[in-house]
């Protein structure tokens, strides 16, 4: 066993898992509150990259800018991507999902797939059908620490993802709005009776999930240096798997699921063969669903009539 290699791969897994986790949070929050699998979420994440790309281009950001100007450009980019995506999430919920709330489950599910295709096509019309280079404003040197090493962007990805996850955790657990979200997730009818505006709360959930996806999009754009309108499809599918693995509806579970899948993917690449990555990911999912149908940290949701 080459321990140095294992450490290197753990860093890779942590980076990949952090990205999956951030996207998975959006899936799990929406599912938790209205039991809808929001298939458009992966595309919201890709749209975040596109907004970031447009913003950076507009600001003329390059790697050779002064540090202060670059920091300003990055802050504007993050804000733009997060706010625009948050607003997009709210609009999607208002016009695509709210009219179908309370109908049988198949209708909103199909609508979600439709929204996903619409977003993909809008992105394709906007930036074209080919992969688009993303400005490499942050250098990505590889730090050789003796036998192991880490890329600078990997540290950025891991650090910023963890900050976002902690912020979400404190918001949901520690604020009044978070409490309203949890109450609505538990039983929206009772929550409404208690005076919670559930429309607002559900919109807020979409807003926060989409803000996270938007930020995730900016980070991966910077990390991979490339965006493609179709990227959200695979990323969304895997993040959705992460959410189910962790226990859909459970935010801590989604984060855990994301990291587990990230590790499974890199370990497969290292020790089994990269072509088996998806096979192992989905095998793990099947095993978890057989032996723990509620996911790793799943919550038992009450049956609704």
């Amino acid at each position, binding site marked *: 066993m080459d321990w140095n290699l294992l450490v290197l791969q753990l860093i890779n897994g942590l980076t990949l898992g952090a990205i999956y986790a951030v996207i998975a949070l959006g899936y799990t929050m929406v599912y938790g509150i209205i039991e809808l699998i929001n298939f458009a979420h992966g595309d919201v994440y890709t749209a975040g990259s596109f907004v970031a790309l447009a913003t950076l281009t507009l600001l003329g950001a390059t790697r050779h800018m002064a540090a202060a100007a670059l920091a300003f450009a990055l802050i504007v980019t993050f804000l733009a991507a997060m706010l625009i995506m948050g607003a997009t999430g709210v609009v999607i919920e208002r016009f695509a999902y709210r009219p179908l709330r309370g109908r049988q489950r198949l209708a909103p599910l199909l609508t979600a797939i439709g929204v996903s295709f619409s977003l993909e096509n809008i992105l394709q019309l906007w930036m074209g059908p*080919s*992969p688009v280079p993303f400005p490499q404003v942050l250098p990505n040197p590889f730090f050789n620490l003796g036998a192991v090493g880490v890329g600078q962007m990997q540290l950025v990805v891991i650090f910023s993802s963890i900050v976002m996850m902690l912020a979400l955790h404190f918001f949901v657990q520690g604020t009044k709005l978070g409490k309203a979200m949890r109450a609505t997730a538990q039983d929206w009818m009772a929550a409404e009776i208690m005076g919670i505006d559930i429309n607002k709360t559900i919109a807020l959930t979409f807003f926060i999930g989409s803000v996270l996806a938007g930020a995730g999009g900016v980070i991966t754009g910077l990390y991979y240096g490339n965006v493609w309108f179709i990227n959200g499809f695979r990323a969304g599918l895997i993040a959705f798997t992460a959410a189910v693995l962790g226990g859909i509806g459970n935010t801590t579970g989604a984060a855990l699921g994301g990291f587990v899948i990230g590790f499974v993917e890199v370990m497969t*690449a290292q020790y089994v063969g990269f072509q088996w990555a998806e096979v192992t990911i989905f095998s793990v999912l099947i095993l978890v669903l057989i032996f723990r149908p509620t996911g790793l940290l799943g919550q038992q949701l009450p049956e609704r009539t």
Partner: protein
Amino acid sequence: MRRLLFLLAGLAVISLIAMGPGSGGLQPANGAAMAGKTIKIGVDLPMSGGEAPNGEPTNNAVLLAIDEANKAGGYKGMMFEEVLKDDAVNGVHDPAQGAKNVQELLADSAVVGIMGNFNSNVGKATIPITNAAGVVQISPSQTNPGLTKPEFGALDVRKAHPTQINYFRVCPTDDLQGPVAADYAFKKLKLKKVAILDDQETYGKGIADEFAREFGKLGGTVVSRDGIPKGTQDFHAILTAIKAKAPDLLFFGGVTTTGGGLIRKQMKDVGLTIPYEGGDGIVEDEFLKVAGDDANGSYGTVAAENAEKLPTAKGFLAAYKAKYKSDPGAYSANGYVAAKIIIDAVKAVGPDRAKVRAWVANLKNYKSIIGTFSFDKNGDTTNKIVSVYTVKNGKWEWLDQINFTL
């Protein structure tokens, strides 16, 4: 239940009409078509998405060939016309879409032959259809040997008429392209240990297999071999695994959109600073865009001669540049020749599918802008030249070419 049965029966009837050989759409063009004003050449290429940079310059060359034929008077007053189909779905070439396109093309009795497709796995799906219909299909760029050579399983794609060849190509195959890439790496670049990644598609896996075989034969070592799950964006883990095996070359079998560009870009992220080589799937501008500055120092082979180096192609190059105000793509000259063969066949025997196919099958010493060649008994060109390119200052530059023509 009964309604379901009716539905199924209805579907079965419809699909029989649509696909059955000998049904109305697949009849050869005859007197009725002759009375029409145009002779149609079906074209199926990836025209949208990440591969549009492949399809567009190839299609431009086809249009150029048709234009020239029409300016010269067409055939007995009838003009040539292109019917273009796009086989890219969501930006990536798609065999099912290609098959659907070819069926639509064949359903039009004015279509005398088909120029295309571009990607080998699309050919796997379309050749059985054109073979059953007995319609000529000429590809500018499909390089997988399994499409023509029985020893690579080509009889599977021409089950309907195993001995009646209808599929031809004007490019040599990956059982040459792969070895050229291996030879160049081993002999010229003096690289002895290779790690191989492929995209698990017909073309990518095929060229990687041929590369591995030749590299082993030369005495080199293949330290690892992995496939890429479709749609992967993050290659850091597999590149870290490869780095640990200390190869001195990374060979990629596949095209830019299935990972060719991102892999090159991410090699640097994990500190893997070795040369990178691929087949014609990465020798395109799209690769330069995706890999950015990191593209420099990559090598790639193309199953065609460099048109810029051919005295016979000077007129074509000038005409192309004048008409489209841009440089032709790697397979433009081949696309021009593929279309020209169909046009010349019509001029020789008239717009009849069966006669056109027979004329092309017997093509001997055909003089074209990419040299003089014949089609062998499997439909492969006897013109066997493979070029090697490298990226310098963000551009693909021609390095060398190897001639296998006997």
